[in-house]
């Protein structure tokens, strides 16, 4: 009988009622008594020396309470990179200080060099407008190749614009070079993984409150991981003891990576709140969001695929320049390296892989992890070059991939890029894709398009990614400066309902619905009696938050472990109550019973006993029913998928429309299929945005040309097709208790190459065979120009 609740069912997202009726509580919805407002003075040049900041007029303006400049934070720590990367020559990466406010130099348009706190935001803005900044403008370092060639430096003290020059795996380098040299066929492709602006609907915001009696701080902020934010502020930046700083991330309206990181504005409002003994609030405008949120992607890559004439892969070699912008954001060094290079073997049995990544400082906003974080870049490079190879060798793109897939009986499989894939069945995913998509009817659809003057293309793609970041021992060896476990506390209340405090943070993912499904299944209690608590360091155990599709795989596992502890303790209490030995107690469907008898107790009765411990074995058991577990994963999880799409291209205008999109994903076990489908939809929408529309562009002087929605094209409903999504080919993860893999980023990883492969296919069908590649976004002008060149 199909279940009607718990794991595998699709209750509607309970949080949506709140969100859709305007009852969400976001940071900007919070207003504290006596609150003042901060506004930042931001550089309008990309690169310049700060000679003087004259605040004499501004500080006397109405309502102004305090003005801060970089000078005020000269003695506090910098906001660090979370991961140390070593260059090929063994040298550690260059880590210039990232100050709270720019000091000495401004390094990108939007770099804050001063902040005004005033009674109202409008007064603060007036005062910001009255600050006179004497800044000598320097030529901007924008293009990565130019940046590496030398000349002006973003950070003079390091004397280079190269942060690191990383090789992976260095021991494979010679073999890979040799394999490529002697290979019967080599396909080469140069491509750009376009820079994107995350564009969460909710812009960043922070409110700091300081209690002058206790010396305690509260920071309400738009964060995907309040504990990490607290750790960074406490251990690195302001030095506020962790037990004096409470970080609260209430409802957060989307993050996509950009709200993982600690930003200077958070430190500023904290310092200002202490100085003024008043709450200080800041909410970013959309323009600030464009200029200062950590951007995503921005790789320039050359990839080579070496293979036999029959298409058997021999080697992949990539050279990548990765833009890190003006300062190292917290995950900016791991994203283009370990989250990218380790995936460069894809789903394939290729024996040789070598990846070189040079990270480059430029006078642009910091670049960091963005939905997919490194894996989309890896997948895009691989799957574009494989598609090009198939065309060069006149092989069917599906057959070429299948020929090289790791086969089900080869798992666990040690990839040539250094990961151990625990499980997968890539052929099964393509079998499913071929079952769902009417490939047979494609030629007829193509003919129909051509009748209307359009070209039609079919794009195929296969991906593997690594989620559930991450085994702390492994990442520690690789340079991580934090552990990447997660934590959960399950508190069964006296009346039987349950609060689950989780380290994961929900900013759209539906944790409030999905996590209770897990606990409900395990305890046999109604999922509606289980509430999730998240986003407040004073309420939840120390967890690492949500990114990298890790919430369920890592924090969900901690929830399972904590719930198991609850069951174990409750079983002991039940044994006492039922006067039986613990070994004879059976727990099923929310009931404790004595094996072979009709004596039983409901879970709620046992919980009540834990809190009203009359007649209780106090010598053996503590009262209460609350357990915490930390979970550190044994390995990454490896979702994979087979994608296909059809596009139509209007050769007269270059306009591309996505006619159909099918995603077959293996996410392992699925807790709530509806939520998973929604995550895939969102991911594909974001991927189509990157592939066709989103184009974050700086001009030579470092001005952001796409700094508003007038020039930055977001995908809209009319740009997207109806998706065909399947996740029935589940190969459960072998090393976490739920067998789950993670689904939050898959769509954004798998879709961009699918789209571009389809566009190239369409152009070839129209005889434009000189077009082997078009860089994203594959905008009308680019397609038309490619055709007409």
């Amino acid at each position, binding site marked *: 009988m199909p279940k009607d609740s718990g794991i595998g069912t699709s209750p509607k997202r309970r949080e949506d009622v709140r969100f859709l009726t305007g009852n969400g509580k976001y940071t900007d919805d919070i207003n504290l008594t006596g609150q003042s407002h901060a506004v930042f003075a931001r550089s309008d040049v990309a690169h310049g020396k700060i000679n003087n900041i004259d605040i004499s007029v501004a500080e006397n303006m109405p309502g102004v309470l305090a003005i801060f400049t970089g000078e005020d934070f000269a003695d506090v720590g910098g906001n660090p990179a979370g991961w140390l990367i070593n260059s090929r020559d063994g040298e550690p990466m260059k880590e210039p200080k990232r100050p709270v406010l720019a000091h000495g130099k401004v390094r990108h348009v939007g770099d804050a060099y001063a902040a005004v706190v005033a009674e109202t935001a*409008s007064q603060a803005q007036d005062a910001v407008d009255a600050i006179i900044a004497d800044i000598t403008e320097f030529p901007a370092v924008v293009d990565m190749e130019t940046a590496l060639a030398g000349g002006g430096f973003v950070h003079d003290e390091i004397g280079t614009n190269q942060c690191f020059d990383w090789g992976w795996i260095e021991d494979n380098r010679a073999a890979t070079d040799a394999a490529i040299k002697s290979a019967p066929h080599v396909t080469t492709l140069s491509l750009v993984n376009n820079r994107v602006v995350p564009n969460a609907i909710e812009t960043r915001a922070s409110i700091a409150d300081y209690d002058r009696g206790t010396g305690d701080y509260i920071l309400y902020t738009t964060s995907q991981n309040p504990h990490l934010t607290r750790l960074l502020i406490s251990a690195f930046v302001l030095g506020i003891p962790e037990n004096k700083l409470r970080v609260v991330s209430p409802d957060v309206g989307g993050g996509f990576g950009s709200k993982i990181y600690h930003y200077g504005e958070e430190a500023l409002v904290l310092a200002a709140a202490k100085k003024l003994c008043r709450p200080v609030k800041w909410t970013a405008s959309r323009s600030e969001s464009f200029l200062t949120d950590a951007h995503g992607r921005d790789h320039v890559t050359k990839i080579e695929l070496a293979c036999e004439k029959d298409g058997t892969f021999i080697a992949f070699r990539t050279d990548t320049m990765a833009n890190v912008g003006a300062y190292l954001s917290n995950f900016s060094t791991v994203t283009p390296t370990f989250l990218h290079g380790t995936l460069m073997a894809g789903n394939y049995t290729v024996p040789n892989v070598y990846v070189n990544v040079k990270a480059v400082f430029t006078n642009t906003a910091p670049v960091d992890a963005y939905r997919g974080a490194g894996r989309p870049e890896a997948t895009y490079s691989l799957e574009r070059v494989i598609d090009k190879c198939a065309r060069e060798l006149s092989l069917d793109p599906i057959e070429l991939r299948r020929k090289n897939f790791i086969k089900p009986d080869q798992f666990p499989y040690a990839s040539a890029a250094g990961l151990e894939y625990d499980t997968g069945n890539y052929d099964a995913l393509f079998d499913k894709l071929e079952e769902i998509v009417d490939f047979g009817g494609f030629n007829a659809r193509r003919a129909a398009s051509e009748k209307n003057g359009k070209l039609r293309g079919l794009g195929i793609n296969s991906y593997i990614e690594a989620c559930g970041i991450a085994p702390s021992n492994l990442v520690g060896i690789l340079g991580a400066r934090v552990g990447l476990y997660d934590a959960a506390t399950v508190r069964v209340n006296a009346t039987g309902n349950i609060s689950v405090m989780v380290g994961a943070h929900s900013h759209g993912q539906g944790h409030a619905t999905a996590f209770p499904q897990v606990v409900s299944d395990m305890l046999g209690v109604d999922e509606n009696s289980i509430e999730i608590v998240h986003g407040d360091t004073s309420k939840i155990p120390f967890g690492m938050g949500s990114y990298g599709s890790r919430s369920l795989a890592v924090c969900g596992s901690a929830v399972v472990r904590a719930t198991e502890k609850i069951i174990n303790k409750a079983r002991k209490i039940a044994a006492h109550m039922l006067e039986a030995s613990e070994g004879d107690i059976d727990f099923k469907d929310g009931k404790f019973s004595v094996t072979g008898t009709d004596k039983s107790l409901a879970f709620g009765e046992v919980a009540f006993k834990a809190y009203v411990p009359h007649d209780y074995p106090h010598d053996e058991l503590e009262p209460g029913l609350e357990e915490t577990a930390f979970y550190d994963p044994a390995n990454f999880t490896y979702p994979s998928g087979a994608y296909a799409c059809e596009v139509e291209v209007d050769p007269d205008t270059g306009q591309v429309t996505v006619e159909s999109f099918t995603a077959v994903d293996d996410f392992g076990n699925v807790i709530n299929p509806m939520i998973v489908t929604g995550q895939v939809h969102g991911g594909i929408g974001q991927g189509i945005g990157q592939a066709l529309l989103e184009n974050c562009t700086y001009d030579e002087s470092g001005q952001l040309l796409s700094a508003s929605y007038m020039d930055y094209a*977001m995908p809209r409903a009319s740009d997207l097709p109806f998706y065909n999504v399947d996740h029935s080919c589940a190969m459960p993860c072998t090393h976490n208790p739920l067998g789950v893999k993670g689904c939050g980023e898959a769509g954004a990883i798998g879709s961009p190459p699918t789209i571009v492969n389809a566009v190239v296919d369409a152009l070839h069908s129209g005889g434009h065979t000189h077009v082997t590649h078009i860089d994203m976004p594959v*905008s009308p002008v680019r397609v038309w120009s490619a055709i*007409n060149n």
Partner: protein
Amino acid sequence: MYNFEFVKPSNVADALAALASEEAQALGGGQTLIPTMKQRLASPEKLVSLLGISEMQGVDVSGNIVTIGGATTHANVAAADAFSGLTGLASGIGDPAVRNRGTIGGSLANNDPAACYPAAALATGATIVTNSREILADDYFQGMFTTALKEVEIITAVRIPVPLASNYQKFEQPASRFALVGVFVAKYVDGVRVAITGASENGVFRWSEAEAALSVNFSYDAISSLSVDASDMISDLHGTKEYRANLVRVLTGRAVLSAS
């Protein structure tokens, strides 16, 4: 945004009086002006809303002339369905929120080089009626964001001769969804007029070569081998000069094919 005073007069005379004070500015639907004020790029001390003036509202079709009040919203122009080219244009501006606020007078006064209405006005040889005079479209548009309007002068109505056939083709700029290029083709007894928006450094313009060819032979073939000079075209993130020049021809052809 800075603070400002707000008045909403009920007739043109009161509006003019209110506008006489320095630093006062007319407000239509606010779809251009308000965002500019939010960015502190404009700072009028007084906004004079024209939306309360009933004589500036509505669409009237009598005989061969459509008269549209200067404060009529895009949504109301679309709903009036005066003739197909105009209806199509008005219903394709922005999104529902923009169409229910933005006005024809505001659009023509602003004369954004990527706006839609300027193409309709120029292609139909419309008359821009203000509080003090009547201006032919051919004299009204004077380059990007520049018009024949004087300091204190409000568009009270737009008079458009109904064409025999017309069509507006808009190729959307991917981000703003304004016209990357927009082409309005209008056929009259005495000839065809073609106006192009979004494309030129000089704002909306008439493509006279196409007009001449289409006036002789109103067909796609008549213009398929013509081209506009790419050197005058706008080049930006969303399109090169050559690309825009191509769109001018492609869209003109499509407008002819779709004209009704």
